[in-house]
């Protein structure tokens, strides 16, 4: 039985997880440089020990209002196709080890932005953990920017 490790975090009271292998680090950050004209899911740019990376507000990707970027936020830094990018989340959770057989594809009833962002769901003891498709979460942000411009 194969198992995988997931880093979990909460956005909009919903538990998400990304494959541990993709996560570079998790840290709280408070200084963001605004990027005018960027999609509103781009919270800003951060300087992580000399590396400049964009921070994507997952809340906005889920249809919420942008968070207040003047306050510290939790960053989950993931490596997406060689480029590090930060995901802004509400709260960081544990690293959990999950069995493949608890995995289920996204339920058919699930609609809206959330459906596009997840690979599927894992049934934990007390709640569901949605496996985030980090690539989509990052790149549909730029896609959304194009749509917005139209």
């Amino acid at each position, binding site marked *: 039985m194969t198992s995988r490790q997931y880093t979990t975090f909460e956005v909009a009271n919903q538990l998400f997880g990304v494959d541990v292998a993709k996560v570079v680090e998790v840290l709280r950050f408070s*200084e963001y*440089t*605004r*990027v*005018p*004209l*960027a*999609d509103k899911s*781009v919270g800003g*740019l*951060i*300087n992580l*020990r*000399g*590396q*400049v*990376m*964009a921070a*994507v507000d997952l809340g906005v990707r889920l249809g919420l209002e942008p968070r207040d970027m003047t306050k510290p936020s939790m960053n989950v830094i993931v490596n997406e196709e060689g*480029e590090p*990018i930060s995901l802004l989340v509400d709260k960081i959770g544990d690293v959990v080890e999950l069995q493949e057989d608890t995995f289920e594809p996204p339920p058919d009833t699930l609609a809206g932005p959330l459906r596009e962002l997840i690979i599927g769901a894992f049934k934990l003891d007390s709640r569901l953990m949605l496996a985030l498709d980090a690539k989509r979460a*990052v*790149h549909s*942000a*730029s896609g959304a*920017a*194009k749509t917005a411009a139209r």
Partner: protein
Amino acid sequence: MPFSQVNPYRVDGTADEHRETNVDELDDIVQEFLVESHENLDQLDRDLVALEQHPDSRELLSSIFRTIHTIKGTSGFLAFHRLETVTHAGESLLSRLRDGAQSMNVESANALLRMVDTVRGLLAQIEEQGVEGEMEIQSVIEQVTACIEDGSGKPKAAPAAAAPAPAAPADEAPAAESAAEVPEPVAEVHPEPEPEPEPEPEPAHEESAANAPVPAPRGGPPGPAGPEPGEEGSAPQRRSVAESSIRVDVDLLDALMRLVGELVLTRNQLVRGVSEMSDPALTRTTQRLNLITSELQESVMKTRMQPIDQIWSKLPRVVRDLSSQLGRQIKLAMEGKDTELDRSLLESVKDPLTHLVRNAVDHGIEPPDVRRAAGKNPEGTLTLRAYHEGGHVVVEVADDGAGIDPDRVASTALDRGVITRDQLARMETSDIFQLLFQPGFSTAKKVTNVSGRGVGMDVVKTNIEKIGGTVDVDSTLGRGTTWRLTIPLTLAIIQALTVECSTEQYAIPQIAVDELVFVDGSSDKNIEHVSGAPVYRLRGKLLPLVHLDETLGLPRGSNDKDVYIAVLQAEGRRFGLVVDRVLNTEEIVVKPLATLLKDIGVYQGSTILGDGKVALILDVQSLARRSLLAAQAVERSGLAVDSQQAQGRAGSGNRLLITGVGDRRVAVPLDMVTRLEEFSVDKIERVGSREVVQYRGRILPLVRLAHLLGAYPAEDGDSVPVVVYSERGRSVALAVEKIVDIVEDSVETHSDLDDSGLTGSAVIQQRVTEMLDVRQAILAADVNFFDAIDEYADNYGGGLEEMSAV
């Protein structure tokens, strides 16, 4: 010819003097050949050994064949005949093996390996003595040939094959014994010829030996002449080519560069922090770190630098071919061959430069009979010049040809509808020359197959701007044309102006910044609007404006009071960028933009400022396109023309720089001002009774207007404002006490009241202002100033009158 592979850089690991010697003694081409051959030979060893295990591998055989073929070809070309003969023999055997005429066996392998060793030995001799020397090659050729003759699938008796093999190396130089097959320790028996035949295994070989169960034959170390690193300083030994330079992956250099960039930033932050702590010991350490970091940065940057000669070296041929084709006589002069540029930039400069050179040959320099008729030397001179200036590399292509006629450019532009008559009326000569960079613009009377098809100058400009550079042209009718490319030293670190807008900081590449203007809210000079588009009256001309906050979709800040305008230049347009504040000029490390943000278009990158904050770098080209709207609004309204006419009525249109000298006001025509500088007082040195300053690597004579005009000088402050005038490479500095303003000259208020050193006086801004006799002032600083320039003109073009007849 595989002399240079494009990807890896060559890095010198040698102290300069070593390299110097090598360069002196060996032609560059031979040196390249040696380095490359050594690398190829190591590869060959590995391939041959691998081949013994996979005797049927076509791929390996082809690769080996190609390598030997390359060495053979090049050695033939360089007239190393012994080397050519040996490789030829090897090639014959290899081609049979490759074509399947015979298959690989132990004898063939031995013979080939021995051949490789012989080649190595010959190379070592070439490197050491510059010639092949008298090395014995016959036996190895025989051995190789023997394999060809009887190797037709029928294995020879082992003893028979082994017998000649050990015998041969004993009487022969490069220690080419096949250790695998030869049980006797013949390896140690080396009579005379080999320079240093110690079979010391080099680290590089261990890997190949480890890969192979059959130890590769080793003997003559690849580096000739004493390859031991721990050499006593007995004789002035030089390092071999293979040791003094190594090939390094570009990615590694890029990574190093990035790391150094980080180090620079960290250093900046540390220095800032420590300066507030006043701990002497820590301060010293920080200073040291500071120095080391700067040096490290410089060294790492150097690894990516290559002399511009790399691209220049191809141009003599281009010029020669073209000029004979076009019936021109041209002398090509090159100054500053050693000027170095980042390799990636060098690549981007190559095509534009070649284009400019072709253009100069075709359109710049006249045919000999035309030149003779004009009283010029029938042989034209094309000068390539490269030098450093203010953190940039300037590359000039100058010809002493016919020059560009601004009127013809203007009329062509009118015909093509590129500009309107109204626009033309407002243009200065330099603006007219800028039209040459418009797409599809060519003034060539006839289209030749060399140039004149209207593709070109715009491409040159686009390509140079893409790497953060600029292109200018300067031309005197009848005397010649100078094209000037200003290129950043490197792409990774640039000079930038930091500005603030809506509380965020942005960086603007300094090369695009022409000047900065402060719009004082309390004065009546303000930002105006023409058909809703913002403009600013800059010295009588309307400058289209772009508000940065508006462009970025930010809430509009101040109501255009107390703001700064950065006057920027890009895509042939000048426009003003309105920002809240101008902060600083600093060196920044350019970081790529996150993929996510590339589509926005207004940013060209990001950077980390000294305080650790991320700032976006603005893309000036893209902003320039946005300024188009404002510019067009100005056109439509025709107001620009009105203002010009109004100005024409009010004054002569000349602009004056008003300076303060003692309690007097002295005006200098702005045409005679090349630059305004401020020199700190302790920078002023003396040559005899004259004052001078060091300026851009030269000695700049300095004259104080207060002394010249007999004014009562005020006390020197910490620094002296200076008006610099330059012409044809000569400069003088006129020290004043204060820069007051720049105003429009108005003739009505002129009076001929004057005094020594003045040409008259005028009432400007309700005050009597003296008009400086600049020529006299310049002569006071440098008696030879104009002579030298005339001389220059004489040398390079003859008399002006004759020229204008052309």
